[in-house]
């Protein structure tokens, strides 16, 4: 393997021997006696010194524009604390920089990095860091092995470009990683990476809680499940919903998006996939050559990474999943990329036709219809019981509903939901509409004529019926959008609710 000439040799100790700028040594200041700062050759000392800009996920530090090496100083603090794993579920996380995954580190090939690992005084156990970007035994593990309330420093030269996982390597290692101690360090190649419009940081890791998925309260690390590799949670960025709703990553139509995706593990690999997108380029395993184009799903090993680029052409919500889908459906491994911008129905039309298909239609009151109805009830209950799916469903509905609204409703009610004064009533915080959900469904389906009083003002106009134009699902979607926009908040509408109203007059 390669060696690091900077760190070899005993010149380092001369300064200490001569007491340059330091008092007497106190033996063994760290675990394993510290060797003292490395004496850097003049060429390295002449390099500009930079404090590394570290970012919390899903953000990524800006691309490095300099064309020369630097001495980069990195400070990373280890903290142990209890935080939210899912709604109503707390977990005792161990973190690099207070986030899971840990702060994103971005340096350039050839940089000399002065790395400081600080273990907060409130920590219960020692920690260290093994950066896969480091050439040298242990990747920094021994050099940064740090008791609670202490700090370690070591220096390395980034010889190899690539996207590397870092993680804690203190025994018992699987527990340290399972508690959240992993992150990514990008060593940009000297020539840089192809420019993109947006870069995001996503890492998958699994959590072994004593309770099952969603079980409320403070959950302890479950040793047996960890050893058996049976995690109740497989998550992106350390919590259920960390990339959903307001926290979704975003882009605009036409932009190029790059994801720096890593797997902390400790045990489970990822079949990383973005629903509705194709990766234009993949740098598999975080290496410096994109070796494949037009990839649907890329396999990312535990303790490994991948860089994926894709251009977003069509607006909508794109779901990030581990395509080992029970992990997405039942264990939380999903996130969202929301893309705004004009539709391009040539690339993606949306549903064009919803026609009656008689092939398997069950007669009302038949055994088949009862089975169908029972199945719908079960699915609905399942979705309701699973906050992730419920949240996801609603998010998706809002997105779809917005498309409907912008096609049909906004001309009168306006994009901001405020209607037109004295002509068309507002929907934003509209007391009349919010007071009765069933009436709202009926109004969309059947239309409305005559006077109506909304928020103290009376309107007298005509709303056309939409029952011919919109499917039950579309009505549910648009109402879910309307009921969750402009300050309105409400549960999602279901197609079944719409169907009931649609059928009442028949």
């Amino acid at each position, binding site marked *: 393997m390669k060696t690091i000439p900077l760190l070899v040799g*005993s010149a380092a*100790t*001369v300064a*200490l*021997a*001569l*007491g340059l700028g330091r*008092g*007497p*040594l*106190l*033996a*063994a200041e760290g675990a394993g*006696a510290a*060797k003292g700062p490395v004496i850097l050759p003049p060429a390295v000392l002449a390099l500009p010194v930079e404090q590394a800009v570290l970012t919390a996920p899903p953000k990524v530090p800006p691309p490095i524009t300099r064309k020369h090496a630097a001495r980069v100083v990195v400070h990373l603090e280890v903290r142990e604390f209890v935080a939210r794993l899912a709604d109503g579920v707390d977990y005792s996380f161990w973190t690099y920089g207070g986030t899971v995954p840990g702060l994103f580190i971005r340096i350039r090939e050839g940089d000399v990095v002065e790395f400081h690992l600080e273990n907060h005084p409130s920590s219960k156990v020692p920690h260290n860091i093994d950066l896969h970007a480091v050439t040298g035994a242990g990747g920094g593990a021994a050099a940064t092995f740090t008791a609670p309330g202490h700090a370690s420093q070591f220096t390395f030269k980034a010889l190899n470009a690539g996207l590397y996982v870092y993680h804690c390597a203190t025994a018992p290692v699987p527990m340290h990683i399972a508690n959240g101690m992993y992150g990514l360090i990008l060593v940009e190649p000297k020539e840089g990476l192809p420019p993109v419009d947006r870069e995001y940081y996503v890492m998958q890791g699994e959590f072994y809680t004593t309770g099952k998925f969603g079980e409320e309260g403070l959950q302890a690390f479950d040793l047996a499940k960890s050893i058996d590799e049976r995690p109740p949670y497989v998550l992106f960025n350390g919590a259920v919903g960390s990339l959903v709703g307001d926290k979704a990553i975003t882009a605009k139509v036409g932009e190029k998006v790059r994801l720096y995706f890593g797997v902390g593990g400790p045990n489970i690999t990822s079949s990383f996939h973005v629903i509705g997108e194709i990766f234009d380029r993949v740098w598999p395993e975080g290496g410096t050559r994109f070796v494949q184009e037009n990839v649907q799903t890329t396999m990312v090993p535990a303790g490994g990474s991948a860089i994926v680029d894709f251009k977003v052409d069509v607006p909508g919500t794109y779901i990030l999943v581990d395509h080992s889908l029970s992990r997405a459906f039942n264990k939380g491994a999903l996130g969202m990329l929301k893309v705004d911008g004009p539709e391009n129905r040539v690339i993606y039309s949306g549903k064009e036709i919803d026609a009656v298909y008689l092939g398997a239609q069950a007669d009302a009151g038949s055994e088949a219809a009862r089975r169908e109805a029972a199945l719908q009830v079960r699915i609905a209950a399942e979705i309701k019981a699973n906050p992730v799916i419920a949240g996801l469903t609603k998010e998706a509905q809002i997105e779809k509903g917005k498309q409907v609204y912008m096609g049909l409703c906004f001309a009168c009610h306006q994009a901001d939901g405020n209607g037109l004064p004295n002509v068309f009533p507002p929907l934003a915080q509209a007391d009349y509409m919010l007071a009765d959900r069933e009436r709202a469904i009926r109004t969309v389906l059947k239309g409305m004529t005559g006077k109506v009083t909304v928020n103290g003002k009376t309107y007298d106009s005509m709303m056309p019926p939409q029952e011919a134009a919109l499917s039950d699902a579309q009505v549910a979607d648009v109402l879910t959008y309307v009921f969750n926009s402009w300050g309105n908040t409400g549960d999602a509408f279901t197609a079944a609710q719409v169907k009931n109203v649609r059928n009442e007059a028949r």
Partner: protein
Amino acid sequence: MKATAWLCTVLFAAAAMAAPPPMEDCCKEAPPAGPVSARSIYQLDATFCSDTGQCLPLAALRGRPVVLAMFFASCGYACPRLVTDMQAIRGRLPAELRDRAAYVLVSFDPDRDTPAALADYRRQRALDGAWMLLRADSGAVAELAALLGVKYRREPSGNFAHSNLITILNPEGEIVHRREGLGGGLDEAAQAVVAVGKGK
């Protein structure tokens, strides 16, 4: 074995109560007056006894540069090399300093390294009066090792696994240099002795 260890402790505790014996010739310079530096390993108030049967606190070394290592006499591989390296460091010192500095070996192994065993070792290695071969109860050994940053462990064979470390102390007993490992770093260690041996 535990009983043996305790016996040793009792014996040494008794020895510690005796008045400190006169210094050896090499130590005839009076130690500096005043309190020991707070960063000095001479803060350790345990008593160490030499192969000549004299017992003293480490603070008796005050006033001289010290080249110090921990070892055990029956060590077949690493310790002889440590002693050779200490001799080589001595050889690199200016003549005046060569005999003024103290060369101290402290045993990990109070059970087997009796005064007689240490005296044998001195003869075998032809170590002159500038060398001090010390032993102490296991607690004092542990505390000194901790102050120096030496890790060691008794193996089932009775031998000791241990860090290889040569420490340079200034006349106050503060650590100014550590040579880790075996071989190499002799010039730097000697420079460290020279640096703290000045001003005399």
